[in-house]
């Protein structure tokens, strides 16, 4: 079974000579299979390709409640959260809701230069993004405070969401929107760690009034 031996026999016999080398015929089938497998794999990999929207998405640094999450440009820590039925914004103004106010206490510092945080969004398990509510003035939130390098500042953020949005929800902090479009801005995504039961407990016992009035 040298390579030279079958070839002279194959020339007069035409194509019929080839199957004489059974190993060769098998390798052709194998090659074809391998080719199909590789082609299939290549096609399959395309489904994993990022969509145009995902390619332009911000760089997300994730973490859990109570953890200092480093987004390189700034650090964010979600200290605690609570639910309320109403928020007393001033001595004469109390905003109420039929849903829930989710009050998030967070701390932040920047790394090199001062920044403001933007209003965060609440990312629910089914992919909905709730912007922080505009019914509480932005000046009452942490977004109004400058983050300085190495100085932790604390404050609150307010969401108005239905109770069904709570299980599996994450809070996404980022920089405020700017006119200058900057790709790959950092953002911090912190899981509230609420499973079905914890979310139900939180929604079942909201505070009646959460006051942010400075005494």
């Amino acid at each position: 079974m040298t390579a030279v031996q079958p070839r002279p026999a194959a020339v007069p016999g035409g194509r019929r000579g080839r199957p004489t080398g059974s190993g060769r015929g098998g390798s052709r089938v194998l090659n074809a299979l391998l080719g199909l497998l590789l082609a299939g794999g290549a096609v399959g990999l395309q489904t994993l390709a990022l969509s145009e929207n995902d390619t332009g998405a911000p760089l997300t640094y994730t973490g859990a409640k109570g953890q200092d999450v480093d987004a390189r440009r700034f650090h964010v820590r979600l200290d605690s959260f609570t639910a309320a039925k109403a928020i007393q914004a001033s001595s004469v103004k109390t905003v109420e809701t039929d849903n829930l106010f989710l009050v998030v206490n967070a701390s932040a510092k920047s790394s090199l230069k001062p920044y403001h945080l933007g209003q965060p969004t609440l990312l629910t398990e089914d992919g909905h993004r709730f912007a922080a509510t505009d019914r509480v003035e932005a000046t009452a939130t942490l977004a109004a405070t400058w983050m300085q390098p190495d100085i932790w500042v604390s404050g609150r953020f307010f969401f108005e969401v239905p109770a069904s949005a709570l299980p599996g929800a994450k809070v996404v902090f980022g920089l405020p929107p700017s006119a200058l479009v900057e790709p790959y801005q950092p953002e911090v995504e912190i899981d509230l760690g609420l499973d079905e039961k914890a979310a139900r407990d939180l929604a079942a016992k909201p505070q009646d009034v959460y006051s942010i009035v400075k005494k």
Partner: protein
Amino acid sequence: MTEPSGGSGRPRRPVVVPAVALVLVTALGITALMGGLNEAPDAPPQLGKGSVLDQGLYSTRFVESRVRTERAQTQFDEDKRFVEMVFEVTNRGDGTTSVGIPPVDGKTGFATTFGGSLVKISPKFPDDSGPFAFALAKGGESRQLHPGIKTTVIVRYRLREGQKPPEKITMDVGSFEYVAGFNDPTERWTMVTQSAGETIVPEVKAQVTLPVQEDATA
């Protein structure tokens, strides 16, 4: 069978083929003259009070239109009368959007706000009377439409002293689609448009007419 058909079929063939060709060419000509095979633009459907319209990004119920008087809160304030249009809007997108205001005459915005989809409101109101738009929240107002939530939205114009409200209000309502941009491959919600001559105008999905109800409290 083969022989008679071969004998009589041969003279018929030169007649049938040109005749069919002639009919086809004529049909083609008539089609071309009448504007081609493009779908003729239909008049947008007319909707009335209480109807629901799928605007892509929003599912909207046109509740009613009414005259409302806002009583003065302080002694320096005065009573204000408004013509209001009431909507129930469900945001079907993934993110919170803004209520927005209807585009002011002559300046067609292509905003993806709900207000931006009320492309044209007639009769016209003077410039200084509005429009104002906001979402009703419990005991207050908001400018946000949160995803998956049904929100009552009010669009209103202020009436001057003694000004009679119109009998009915007609709105041209546009819609949105989630598509890639013209020169930007990322997908986003954009207003459905059509070309009108050299410009691009929003496509009117439906024309909604609401009768204006008189103020019940006055």
